[in-house]
């Protein structure tokens, strides 16, 4: 993995929000549901109750959205950023009723086929499904939607530093950021000059400062163990 080079020269980053250096996109994680099949859930804990639990699609810690959703679920039952045990315990109790447990990449397909009607996912997936004409709505859970960022980093000791900066500048520039908000990417931009897509759960990027953020430096050493735990708890 490359070492991160901190950006000292901010002169070319004048177009983006002051908080979002090195970032080139956002994703917001919450709950997606089919409004024609189930009512809107209010929060993470609702996922484990009827009528949602029998239509729930679960996924594990293999991706960012899965990990952060399970952390938030765990917090509802006394867990924390580094303790997901309560979520696994509660999931195990309702496991026979759950509609589907799949790989993260398979979840949109299962939702589209009606195999599950409620799942935790990010705004990008919801926008993609909506774009294909599928009945899906996004809900910000009561305890807060989760925000995470997709970042770009310059490799330490690179021979192409000037070009790397030019590339960073290009990606956070208005043209590329606008293109990234459209299908099939459906990103949330970092550039304040870009108009936000209409179906996002926020009116402006300032609202995101109120969203839940996770400290991934604390999560990463634990994730391998969580993946193994999830396997064992979910195995038939």
């Amino acid at each position, binding site marked *: 993995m490359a070492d991160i080079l901190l950006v000292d020269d901010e002169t070319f980053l004048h177009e983006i929000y002051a908080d979002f250096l090195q970032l080139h996109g956002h994703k917001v994680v919450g709950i997606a549901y089919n409004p024609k099949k189930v009512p809107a859930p209010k929060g993470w804990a609702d996922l484990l109750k009827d009528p949602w639990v029998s239509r729930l699609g679960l996924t594990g810690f293999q991706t960012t959205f899965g990990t952060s959703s399970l952390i938030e679920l765990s917090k509802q039952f006394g867990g924390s950023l580094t303790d997901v045990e309560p979520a696994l315990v509660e999931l195990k109790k309702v496991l026979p009723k759950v*509609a589907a447990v799949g790989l993260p990449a398979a979840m949109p397909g299962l939702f589209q086929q009606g195999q599950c009607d409620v799942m935790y996912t990010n705004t990008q997936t919801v926008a993609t499904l909506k774009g294909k004409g599928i009945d899906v709505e996004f809900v910000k859970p009561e305890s807060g939607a989760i925000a995470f960022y997709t970042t770009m980093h310059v490799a330490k000791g690179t021979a192409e530093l000037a070009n790397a900066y030019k590339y960073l500048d290009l990606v956070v520039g208005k043209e590329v950021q606008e293109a990234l908000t459209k299908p099939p990417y459906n990103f949330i931009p970092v550039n304040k000059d870009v108009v936000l897509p209409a179906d996002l759960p926020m009116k402006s990027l300032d609202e995101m400062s109120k969203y839940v953020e996770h400290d991934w430096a604390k999560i990463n050493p634990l994730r391998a163990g969580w993946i193994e735990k999830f396997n064992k708890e979910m195995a038939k």
Partner: protein
Amino acid sequence: MTMTLAAASETGGGSLRRYLKLDAWQLALPLALAFAALFVAPLLLLVGVSFFNDDKITQPGFGSWIKFFGDPFNYKVIGDTLLLGVKTVCTTVLIGYPLALVYIDLPSRLQKVLIFIIVLPLLLSVVVRTFAWIVVLGREGMVNQVLQGIGIISEPLRLLQTELGLVISLTQIEMPLMLLPLISVMSRLDPNLRDASAALGASRWRTLFTVIVPLSMPGLVAGCLLVFASSTTAFISQTVIGGVRLIYLPLLIWQQSLVVYNWPLAAVISLSLVVSVLSVIAALSYMGRRSSGHLHG
């Protein structure tokens, strides 16, 4: 081996060999080198990587092996993976063998049609075939719609993300691998042998079990080996149709290598898959040789 090659060299290949002044081993050298570079060397690298304790591959040791085999859960995963292969082999034999028997008795025109139908799935990528099964087996899929339509069931059946659904779909996906070797061997069966058996008073069932099955054994064994190897390692089908609650070795390998980046542990699990699948294949081959050995004795 040399004698067979010498016999072959008397025909077309011989003149080229004499012209190039090459021995048999020299002719085999390009393929052997490619095999060594592209298969044996990476396999040895995999074995080497497995003997490290940490995911950064800096401390040599048996740590990863102890971690994997010290956890009883993993024995269940190995067992389930091999059992999935066995179940798929059984279902493909049960459906494929009668189909092959039908094939050999068909007129040549219909044989061509049947071969086309059998090979047709192979023209599609296995990923496409796997995703098609979601549409068939899903809650709102074809099977449930038909059964609910005729009134056999009132609630949709749970077929996706169950082992039953997985075995059904793997049977279809792997069927060409069983049928093609079987048909190839059974087409070369001397039809006089069947007639002779009937003429000597054997019933059709007796002819089947004492004449046809032993003679078709090489094709049956080849089909079983291919289906077993393919179904135990069918990562896409296992995870997409079986879901993440059915845990098999390919899923663990993917998690350790492409999600967690723990290469030594991924190497350990990969080698466990290779060794366990090869052991079953070796046993199947041995049984196949034993049962057809007495035919030529």
